[in-house]
Each structure stands twice: as structure tokens, then as C-alpha cells.
């Protein structure tokens, strides 16, 4: 089964992230970056070269890193705290909870190379629990840009926002999916395709795969709605309710564990609707620690391909 998308250009979102950060930092000297010996892997080399004083490398010390970020934010700086997703969220979870979300210090937590971008490095290096962990923290926005445009817009919004935010900055190459001129809106899913038979909700790397799945289903004569869940928190409850009311089934797909992630959030909304409004939901994601393999291999392994999404949609429509 082929998993690579057919769209010609594929991009590492870290490049757009670093470009936008540097551009904004040129005119806003409150912007600083904080990292954990990850200058290279966070794509901060050019930022450091241009703003050597504004790159704070605390060394391999992520709990300290998030605390330092909170301190900088509390004093009016705009810290982009950058580290590989698992160490930023997992290692520093209590700092994220107490120093960022609970204290409401407007830190921008940048989970670099999230999901299973570090394929063969294994579960310790996969950031697939971040949605589950961070969704439980009130007052923390969770943003998952699906492509370059959304990555740039997320960085802009982070600078403008008075609230703390977590951004997944993707490394696994993805095609552009956002319509030209589209705007990333806080707390809103973006509609990529209208339809009435079934809704596919993807996030991050799964968005382009959902678009491809819709094409497979359209070939069967189905009318498919595709939503890009670029904001996971705040959750776009209205879009979920509309999908339940206006289409016959909802399929979610995420590069994350299904326990408490995007699909769980969607299911929680749907399950609390009145009996007549409820629709079948299928949740695609990880269910166990990944075996050894590349990112593409693992996306296949966990059934996160266009073909699997389409099969889940057919199953939900047929079997309810």
C-alpha cells in the first residue's frame, strides 16, 4: 500500500517556522527562542546567527527550559520554547501545567518533529501522547499546522496571542493543503471539502491523507466533507455538531495515541448529542508503542493511510 502522497511538493514545516520566526523577530525584540541543545534540530541556527543574545540554550534540561520560558514570558518577552515534542511535553509536563497553563504565562511551546517523525528512534522519541496530555490542561491552545502556510500563521498568532500555546511543528514532509488566502482561525477547523455523506477530520500529517481518502470515496460516488483540525484546543464544537447533523458518519485521523486525542475529543462531543443527532464515529490513531520502522512504515502500520481512512468511512456508513 502506497502512503506517499501524489502532490508534487513536500515540505518540512520547520523551515517555514524558522523563516517566519526570524522575520517577526526583526521587528519585535520581545521575541526570544529557548532550546535544549537542539539548535540544529529546532532549525534555530539562522535565528542564533542573527540574534545571538536572543537564543537561550539551557542545555539538555527540558524542565528547566520550560520554567525559564515561563520566567521570560512573565517579564514581557515572547519565548518560543523549542524542543523535540516528547521531551518538551512529556519530560516537562508539570512545568507546562503549573508554570505555563495554570500560571497563564504566554509561553509558546514548540513541539518540534512531532508524531512519529523520528520513526526508527522509537517510542521514546515519538510525540504521540501530546494531545492527550495537553488537552487535559485548561487554558492552553493546541495548534497543529497542516502545512507551510498554517505554520507561518501559527507563529504570527502566537506572537499576537496573550495566551500560552502549544504548536506541533512538523518535520515529516507534507504537501500544501490550505487554500491560497485561507486564514488559520483560533478554535476553528478549516473546511477543505464540502460533503454530506461522511466527514473526515484529520490533523497535521493526516490532513493531506484525508483529502486523498475523500477522492477515493468520491470515486465510489460518496459526498465527503474534509475538515482540517488545525486547532485541537479550543475545540471546534460547532463544526463537530454540524458534521454530525449534516453528514452520516465521522472519521478522525491523527498521528497520536487514540486515548484522549483528537478522535476522543470529537467522540465526546458526538456522544453527548441527542439520540437523533448521534452518528457513528471511527477513531484512527495509535493504540500501542510503535515497533521499529520509518515514519511512513509506521503510518502504514497503524492504518493511517488514505486507503484505511476510506475503509473506515465505508465501514461506518455500512455498519453504523
Amino acid at each position, binding site marked *: 500500500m502506497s502512503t506517499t502522497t501524489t502532490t508534487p511538493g513536500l515540505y518540512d514545516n520547520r523551515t517555514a517556522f524558522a523563516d517566519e520566526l526570524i522575520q517577526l523577530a526583526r521587528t519585535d525584540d520581545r521575541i526570544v527562542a529557548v532550546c535544549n541543545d*537542539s539548535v540544529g534540530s529546532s532549525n534555530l541556527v539562522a535565528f542564533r546567527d542573527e540574534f545571538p543574545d536572543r537564543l537561550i540554550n539551557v542545555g*539538555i*534540561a527540558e524542565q528547566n527550559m520550560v520554567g525559564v520560558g515561563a520566567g521570560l514570558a512573565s517579564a514581557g518577552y515572547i519565548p518560543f520554547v523549542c524542543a523535540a515534542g516528547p521531551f518538551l511535553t512529556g519530560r516537562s509536563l508539570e512545568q507546562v501545567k503549573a508554570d505555563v497553563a495554570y500560571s497563564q504565562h504566554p509561553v509558546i511551546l514548540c513541539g518540534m518533529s512531532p508524531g512519529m517523525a523520528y520513526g*526508527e*528512534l522509537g517510542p*521514546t522519541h515519538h510525540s504521540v501522547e501530546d494531545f492527550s496530555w495537553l488537552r487535559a490542561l485548561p487554558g492552553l491552545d493546541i495548534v497543529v499546522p497542516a502545512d507551510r502556510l498554517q505554520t507561518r500563521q501559527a507563529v504570527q498568532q502566537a506572537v499576537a496571542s496573550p495566551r500560552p500555546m502549544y504548536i506541533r511543528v512538523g518535520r515529516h514532509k507534507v504537501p500544501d493543503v490550505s487554500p491560497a488566502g485561507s486564514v488559520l482561525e483560533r478554535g476553528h477547523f478549516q473546511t477543505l471539502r464540502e460533503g454530506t455523506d461522511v466527514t473526515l477530520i484529520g490533523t497535521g500529517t493526516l490532513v493531506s491523507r484525508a483529502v486523498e481518502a475523500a477522492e477515493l470515496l468520491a470515486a465510489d460516488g460518496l459526498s465527503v466533507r474534509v475538515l482540517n483540525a488545525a486547532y485541537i484546543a479550543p475545540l471546534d464544537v460547532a463544526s463537530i455538531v454540524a458534521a454530525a447533523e449534516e453528514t452520516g458518519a465521522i472519521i478522525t485521523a491523527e498521528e497520536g495515541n487514540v486515548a484522549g486525542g483528537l478522535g476522543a475529543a470529537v467522540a465526546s462531543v458526538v456522544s453527548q448529542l441527542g439520540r437523533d443527532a448521534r452518528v457513528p464515529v471511527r477513531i484512527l490513531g495509535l493504540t500501542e508503542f510503535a515497533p*521499529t520502522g520509518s515514519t511512513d512504515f509506521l503510518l502504514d502500520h497503524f492504518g493511517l493511510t488514505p486507503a484505511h481512512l476510506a475503509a473506515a468511512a465505508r465501514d461506518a456508513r455500512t455498519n453504523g
Partner: protein
Amino acid sequence: MLLGTDVTQVEAWRKLQEKLTAASVTDRSALLHRRANDTRSDVVRMIDHAGQGHIGGDFSVTDILTVLFNGVLRIDPNDPQKAGRDRFVLSKGHCAAALYATLASCGYFSPDELLTFMGPLSALNGHPNRNKVPGVETNTGPLGHGLPVAVGQALAAKLAGNGARVFAVMGDGEMQEGSNWEALMTGAHYGLDNLTAVVDRNRLQQGARTEDTSSLDPLDEKLLAFGWELRIIDGHDYEQLAAAFKPSSTGKPVAVIANTTKGKGVSFIEDRVEWHHKVPSTEQVVLALEELA
């Protein structure tokens, strides 16, 4: 457990142990040097095949691993889970390739497996997994986890009164993680003289020198102040390594600062920050294997 003992290889490892015991100091060092460079050659082939890996840190820790697994650790590769065995924890789990090559040389599993390193569904993940690889005592990869686990293992040996010793190896950059210093306090507080913490002091971390990132020095004074017996050695000298791994003489846990060279053994890889996880080209693989032959 995905992998099982290779009895022929265990036999070869046992023969080497006999030779080492009988050998003169010079011969012993020569034998260990040969063993270590064979491990480095395995690592080169594994990383070449996988197209990724952490060659610099693999090479700096290889001599430490070689000495531990050839004469220091009381282990039985035929019975990896043997009760009361000594424990080894590679806290700098990104150097899994060096650990796998070392374990295979002892016969914990067949050396033929090494080329599956990081391949689809391989037991040999980029970071070690105890549920898949015999000889691995705990899963590592996120830095700063190994020493607390080793403290727990040393406490367990004390509680059980079984005389087992525990060794953990940390990278020097890794010592920037606060968890290590919490574990150092626990180790000293409980007087864990059966515990040895080795710092692979190659002075480089992922992106730069440790002292240009978040200084560790004076590391010696810090370790002493935390209540550990301190041994500072050349981490590529087999006799010094063996001496440093002798039991505590003070009733305190032992910290070893092993001064090493990142990339040790291959001239163009030595002491260069970019070789943290750079992958050698086809020509460089040939040159590296020549230097290690």
C-alpha cells in the same frame, strides 16, 4: 523477547574471558583493543546499513562497554535474567548501536542480527528496548533516566543482600539533566557502594561543546560535593578502566569521570561535533573500516 541466545557466540566470548584472565597486562590490553575495534567496525556497518545512528558517542563509549562486558560484569549471556546478576544501564541510549554490537559479541543474540538495526520491525530499535533485546536492563533514549533506575537497582541489590553491582553510563551533556543530580543525592544518601556511575566525558554534546552550552565543570568537585567516591581516568585505557570499575573503597557510591574522545578510533570522526549523528559516506565507511582493522 524477540531475540535469543547464540550459544556458539557465548562459547567464543567465554574463551576470550579465559584468555583475558591468563594474559599479561600488555596482552590483555591488546585483546580488549581488538575486541573494541571489532565492535566499532560492527557499528560502522550497522550505521551504514541503517543510514542513521550516533557514531560519535558510540565510539567514545565503546572501550567502556568492552571492559565492562569482558571481565567486570558478573553476567551469563546464556541466562540473561539470572537472579542476582550485575546490572548495566546505558543511560545515553542513543548509543544503542555500540551496546547491541557489544551484547552480540557476548552471545546475548546472534551477531547476524546487527544489520537489522533500525529496520522495519527489528528488535534493534534506535534506542534499546529490554522487552526485545536480551541484556538490556531498562529502556533508555530520553536522557537523564538511567541513573535513577540504576539507583533503584542498587537499592534492590542491597535489600536482597545478593551482592550484585550496578553500572550506569551517562553522556556528559546528559549530566545537564536535573534528574541525574537527584539520583546522585539518593545514591550518596543510601550509601550505595555497589553502584558505579560513569560519565563519558567527551566534552561534546549534540550541537556544541558542553562547556560552550551549559558548563559542567568543575564536574569533579560537583561529584565529590554530592558525596561520591571519585575516579578520574583515561576512558580509552583498558587498565585504567578496569581499575576504575573496582568496588568502592569508601562505602560511598563511585563516580567515574572517563575522559574520552567522541568518535574515538577513526581519525576523521574524532572530536568533531557534526559526527554526533552524521552518517559516513560509502568512501568514509571504507576508510573507517581500514582504520579499525
